[in-house]
């Protein structure tokens, strides 16, 4: 849990059965938990899926959510690791206008600073890919905003235990 921004990462290991995403989404909605992001994918074990849920709320909220998640039959394990116990990353794609003179060079410089990758360029815009924690992606967004952001999308946090 990151006390500063009141965000916690819940790592939820589930049995890969139909309807489990629906149940988890339903629980979050019904109990009115405030989530920042939710990612779900397969894991090294084909029978298991893994949810990474970024929750906003105090310690009690996270504890309540974790207990409610355990009521779902397919949920095997809910972990609420401290930020230092995990490697957490997010990926963002950003489409920035390069119509203004000199923007292209300036954006490339910023991208280098953030270790963002240029994945597509044309005369109108360039698409960049950046990975990192939420603060880094926020900062990158702020730095490129003045050029004119045409489209922006991020995946939400995914995490592994150290």
């Amino acid at each position: 849990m990151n006390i500063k921004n009141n965000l916690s990462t819940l790592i939820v290991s589930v049995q890969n059965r139909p309807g489990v995403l629906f149940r988890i989404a339903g629980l979050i909605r019904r109990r009115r938990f405030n989530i920042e992001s939710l990612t779900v994918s397969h894991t090294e074990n084909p029978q298991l899926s893994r949810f990474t849920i970024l929750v906003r709320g105090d310690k009690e909220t996270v504890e309540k959510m974790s207990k409610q998640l355990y009521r779902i039959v397919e949920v095997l394990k809910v972990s609420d690791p401290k930020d230092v116990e995990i490697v957490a990353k997010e990926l963002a794609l950003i489409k920035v206008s390069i119509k203004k003179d000199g923007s292209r060079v300036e954006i490339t410089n910023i991208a280098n600073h953030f270790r963002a990758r240029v994945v597509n360029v044309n005369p109108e815009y360039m698409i960049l890919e950046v990975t990192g924690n939420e603060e880094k992606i926020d900062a990158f967004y702020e730095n490129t905003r003045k050029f004119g952001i045409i489209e922006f999308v991020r995946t939400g946090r995914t995490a592994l235990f150290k």
Partner: protein
Amino acid sequence: MKKRLKEGQKATGAEIVCEALLREGTDIIFGYPGGAIMPVYDALLKYPQLHHILVRHEQGAAHAAEGFARVTGKPGVCLVTSGPGATNLVTGLADAMMDSVPIVCISGQVISSLIGNDAFQETDVVGVTAMVTKHNYLVIKPEEIAETIKEAFHLARTGRPGPVMIDIAKDAQQGITSFSYSKEITLPGYRPTITGNPKQVKRAAEIINKSLKPFILAGHGILISHAEKELAALAEKSHIPVATTLHGISSIPRDHRCYVGMLGMHGNLSPNKCTNEADVIIALGMRFDDRVTGKISGYARRAKVIHIDIDPAELNKNVPAEVPIVGDVKHVLQQLNPLISKADHKDWFVRFKEYDKLEFEKVIKNEVYPKTGQIKMGEVIRRLSEETKGQAIVVADVGQNQMFAARYYDFKVADSFITSGGLGTMGFALPAGAGAKIGRPNQEVWVITGDGGFQMKIQEMATIFQENINLKIAILNNNYLGMVRQWQHLFFDKKYSEVFLRNPNFIKLSEGFGIPAEKVDKRNNILPAIKRARKHKGPYLIEFVVETEANVFPMMPAGAAVDEIRLE
């Protein structure tokens, strides 16, 4: 011819449904046929061991299954068709979910190739019922049926019980496969904790042993885990007052020396008041519902709370617990009781007695022993209680009739009060009463309902007639939706909005259903009518014409603290 399947035998999915139900100990099914479930209804003809009760509306099937489950401890079973058949179950599922009642409901679904195409009588049953079931399934292959039913029963009856829904596509019912019931259930994510953490149990014992004013709150969990003996043992050993929640009623006999009353909005004065005087609260298999706690910030102000429940999500949900213990309350009490030292809390009991005296003078005396005026609901219940010696099963509906039944019947046997507590489903009592009588045919069962609630599921009178269920039905008719009227009286300046009922002739109605009935509007006829009903073999209805504008007291106004409960 009674069909049975052997391991490995070829059978249709529908036959496997019947066989699996038998293997789970089912002998009663509450249901209603329709297109998508017809193969199972056809197979039922070969399974006369499964007695099917034809209800008149699927919601009635769900409530009947609940009533059956509450008195037998076995999951109640419903069988319905797709679309409207399944959606009509939803209220019953939500009711069972809130009150932790094990029921297994099977619905037919349109053939699998049509699922998702908005076919005739197609509803996304898994989607619709997900939030009101403990778990649910869509089955589209005959090979999945046996395992799913086995798993469903396991989920319904273990841990914190609840409703499980199984939606079976019609082609899965028709398909042929080899029957197998030997496979072990694998639910790695579902392992209810039974035994309490010994360290926590020890801490709980230390706190109880040091306390001067301990107080036990007994909930539905006591009845579900059959911990009545352990509860009484704990209370007797350390001389601790016991109050029950609405669903905890009958977990301890009302004449037990440690019993002090019912908690909650319309509970007794002493347990509510003393909640804020106790120094230790021992909450057993209950969930601190808002009708029990009132305003949370004003609840249990001086008490350390020891909370024992099988559902971890209930601990620290509403009331923070000093010692939370996850486990089956019977097991945890078996661990706890030997660590408890003998004590005497005579002075503490005196506090309860003082409040009891006040409540008797201000409320009970006039409610139960009135000399003049219209018939009181409380006196009807008390006469019934006296006449049946507290031995009957009382199935109460929702509203004023429910509160009077809960307050004035002197329950003596376990599992003898059944009502819709969490969801507050009007109409619950008639079908649930039918289910309870079927579950315990040798025990007297009384339905207590109001003129409003009775009409909500009145069609089940036909079910009762068809099955000749020996059920006694008491309508407390005040010509109002009494509880709503009471709130309008107290909190909306007596401005009555849509609460007056111009009722049908209940006697003719009942007789129209083939059920003898009589009307009681004089005090001296209450007892004779009850006696006639008891003597009659078969269902019998009494309409009691009661005081029209009576209010239930004590009452904890919404948003008030537990000790702000009012006597008038």
